[in-house]
């Protein structure tokens, strides 16, 4: 329902729902208010033109056309709505046949529906009109049944989408019958798109009715709807055009009312997330350099990436939320830096900001953001540098390749775009890079499509794409989360090899501490948009000083963890970026937290060994594990 009310607030929705309200109001009240004027005969003014007395003139019996158009609203709308209702009802019954009757009976029904949909709508209407006979009732049935196949197909498609979801499977497993599943689970979940389509459909049905009545198959005298009035008015269209045009205009207005309202709701359903953001955004430069902080020349030649006080903000309602709140770190040549944290900790956003992949309305600020000595904050000038020297590997390799193009061509495209290589050179390099990431038979594989690759191979091909240039930094965002352990091993080894061979730096983002511990030299632990600890990866198990890091390590079972003791858990919920508490963000979940933690946010302090930690109680002993486990965990 939220979507409907939001739809009303758009200009499109305002127009649509305004017209719809007007139409419905007229349909309800016009016969009561003006029923008399519409039927009274003015024998002095038969077939008269527009005048002050009769705004749209009169018909052949001297009845006022303006009032007749208004009064006809009720019948026209009632017919359209009931025909639509029949279409939807029959459509639901037909569409749910495969679910209720099983595949053997359902399939032919859907096959039939698909065949019928192929016929022109008007042909079906006429066919059914002949079957059901002339008159308003026959017309409603005819238009209703003629529209049913379209809704049947829509229902079938929508239902198939919902029926594939796990909650339907879960209901089946608990022994809930098909009928109940349909009513309790499937229909409520397809109701919204169905209603939107029905609303839009009603506009079309209105037109069908006008057509039918116009052909004389619909409403019969003395009853009248807009179509009937058009037919009556057509005979005199050259002398008295308003008699036909006025009801025609009414059809258009009412049709628009239905269409625009449905369209407005459909749009608000489709862009659910974007709407509030867009509405609140005031366009401003995306990368606003912090005042006065120009980057001086780099003295440290090994420095690949230098990030200081990186912030990422999104508009949220009237305010802004900052999922990344001041992150500072450096990556040196050949170094592998891991970023760990729960979902929502800002780890992926940090990486995306570094790779310049955040789009409006995200806003990236930093005191310093340099990649290979170039300041990334001043806009678009670094496309070439980023294109050749920075590679990004995402979690799901299926979505990062275009399924319609050959893998080799997609790799080659990178080289052609950034290195101006010829087509042949680029292809040669693509094959070579696929070989480098140990794709067997790369010449043949390059000509294949992404779906012909296994998950692990796709991920390696993705790394291969990153290697088309001469990357100095690979940003890998959960590169192995979607993969099996054996394949994960191959991909991680791949990254290590690339690193060792060319001195490429790696930023590896993962929620899996054990992966990070194995691959990385250094680990940044993020919580609520901040780095809370920065330590050598080898120290994770025993040398971590922040209670969050220690909890994170203890919560993940590995092949050595004590199977008799309960796993450590972190009570409570991660911080919502919209409500970051005062003081240390982790205080609410921390066993060491005291009043100071809740009031003052601890700064990220650098220790003598260059590790950093942001905690007032860094390194203090934690309460015994069993005490922690005894807390009622509501995670």
């Amino acid at each position, binding site marked *: 329902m939220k979507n409907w009310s939001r739809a009303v607030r758009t200009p499109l929705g305002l127009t649509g729902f305004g017209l719809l309200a007007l139409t419905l109001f007229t349909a309800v009240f016009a016969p009561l208010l003006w029923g008399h004027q519409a039927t009274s005969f003015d024998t002095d003014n038969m077939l008269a033109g527009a005048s002050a007395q009769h705004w749209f003139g009169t018909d052949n019996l001297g009845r006022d056309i303006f009032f007749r158009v208004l009064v006809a609203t009720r019948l026209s709308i009632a017919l359209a709505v009931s025909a639509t209702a029949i279409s939807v009802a029959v459509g639901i019954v037909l569409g749910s046949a495969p679910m209720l009757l099983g595949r053997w009976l359902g399939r032919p029904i859907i096959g039939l529906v698909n065949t019928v949909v192929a016929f022109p709508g008007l042909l079906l209407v006429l066919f059914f009109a002949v079957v059901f006979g002339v008159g308003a009732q026959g017309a409603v049935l005819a238009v209703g049944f003629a529209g049913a196949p379209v809704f049947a197909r829509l229902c079938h498609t929508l239902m198939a989408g919902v029926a594939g*979801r*796990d*909650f339907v*499977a*879960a*209901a*089946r*497993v*608990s*022994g*809930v019958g098909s009928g109940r599943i349909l009513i*309790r*689970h499937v229909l*409520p*979940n397809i109701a919204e798109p169905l209603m939107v389509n029905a609303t839009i459909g009603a506009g079309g049905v209105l037109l069908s009715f006008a057509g039918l009545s116009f052909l004389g198959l619909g409403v019969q005298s003395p009853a009248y709807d807009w179509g009937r009035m058009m037919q009556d008015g057509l005979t005199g269209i050259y002398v008295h055009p308003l008699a036909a045009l006025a009801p025609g205009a009414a059809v258009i207005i009412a049709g628009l009312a239905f269409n625009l309202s449905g369209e407005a709701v459909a749009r608000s359903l489709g862009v659910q997330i974007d709407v509030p953001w867009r509405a609140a955004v005031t366009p401003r430069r995306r990368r606003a350099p912090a005042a006065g902080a120009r980057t001086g020349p780099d003295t440290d030649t090994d420095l690949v990436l230098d990030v200081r006080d990186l912030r990422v903000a999104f508009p949220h309602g009237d305010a802004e939320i900052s999922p990344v709140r001041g992150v500072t770190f450096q990556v040196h040549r050949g170094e592998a830096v891991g970023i760990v944290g*729960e*979902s929502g900790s800002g780890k992926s956003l940090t990486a995306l900001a570094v790779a310049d992949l955040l789009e409006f309305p995200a806003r990236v600020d930093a005191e310093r953001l340099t990649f290979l000595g170039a300041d990334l904050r001043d806009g678009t000038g670094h496309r070439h540098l980023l294109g050749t020297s920075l590679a990004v590997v995402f979690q799901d390799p299926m979505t990062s390749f275009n399924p319609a193009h050959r893998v080799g061509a997609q790799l080659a495209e990178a080289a052609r775009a950034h290195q101006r290589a010829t087509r042949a050179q680029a292809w040669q390099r693509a094959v070579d890079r696929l070989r480098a990431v*140990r794709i067997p038979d790369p010449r043949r594989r390059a000509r294949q499509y992404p779906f012909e690759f296994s*998950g692990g191979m796709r991920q390696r091909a993705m790394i291969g794409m990153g290697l088309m240039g001469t990357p100095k930094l690979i940003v890998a965002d959960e590169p192995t989360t979607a993969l*099996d*352990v*054996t*394949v*994960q*091993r*191959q991909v*991680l*080894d791949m990254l*290590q090899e690339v690193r060792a061979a060319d001195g490429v730096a790696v930023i590896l983002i993962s*929620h*899996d*501490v*054990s*992966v990070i*511990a*194995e691959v990385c030299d250094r680990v940044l632990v993020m919580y609520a948009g901040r780095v809370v600890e920065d330590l050598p990866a*080898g120290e*994770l*198990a*025993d040398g971590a000083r922040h209670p969050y890091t220690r*909890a*994170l*390590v203890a*919560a*993940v*079972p*590995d*092949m*050595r*963890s004590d*199977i008799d003791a*309960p*796993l450590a*858990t*972190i009570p409570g919920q*991660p911080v919502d970026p919209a409500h970051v508490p005062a003081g240390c963000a982790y205080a609410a979940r921390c066993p060491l937290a005291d009043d100071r933690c809740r009031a003052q946010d601890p700064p990220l302090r650098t220790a003598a060994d260059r590790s950093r930690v942001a905690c007032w109680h860094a390194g203090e002993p934690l309460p015994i594990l069993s005490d922690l*486990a005894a807390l009622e*965990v*509501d*995670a």
Partner: protein
Amino acid sequence: MSILSLHDLTVRYRHTVAVDRVDLVVPEGQIVGLVGESGSGKSSIARAVVGLAPVSGGRIALDGRDLPRRGRRRPVQMVFQDPYSSLDPRMTVGDSIAEAIPHRLGRAARRSEVERLLHLVHLDPARAGHRPGQLSGGQRQRVALARALAGRPEVLIADEITSALDVSVQGAILNLVRDMQRELGLSMLFISHNLAVVRYVASRIAVMYQGRIVEEGPTAEVLADPRDDYTRQLLAAVPTGAGGRRPVRSAESGCD
């Protein structure tokens, strides 16, 4: 509780054989871990047992009798991988759980049963009125567990129930699984691709590869002394973990 046994189970989808003549026993009151790569047929076994996948051959038995896979009373219940998809977004938590109670109950009895189940999975009974959208991933997975328990199952199947969850929550769910197994004496088939997780919860372990079970035995034995090549490969691939203390990297880069 009961013994779930699969004899010669075969699951075929059109031309592909997902499960190839598998024999597997889930002994009374024990957790059996089923590991293997994706596509090895782990989930197909689970779905076949609860009646979501066709059984093309073989037999599924509970305490020696054929397992009912239709009808209202289902002695084997399943918890799905993704708690964001396995709960109806339009239904309250309480309704979702109540729906899975097989016998008809009065309003008050139903409410108290839902409360009991929520309490069992360590959730505040007041959550019954919430919709899934208001819950975190871990809370949703607890609700999914409660729903599975509502059917008073004799055997529970858990299909990758922690892989869609954050690490901080995963531990809590695993603890809960172990507690429930001990308290209720449930027999369980615990499917996961994560060996460390299976090692933590399961007393026996079965390794699947290309639709067949290549190795089966007590967890400690299989992990300490794997007999099958694939099991060895699997073990070698597991990250050594944070407890590994500076793993020797060069030694591992060879196993591809």
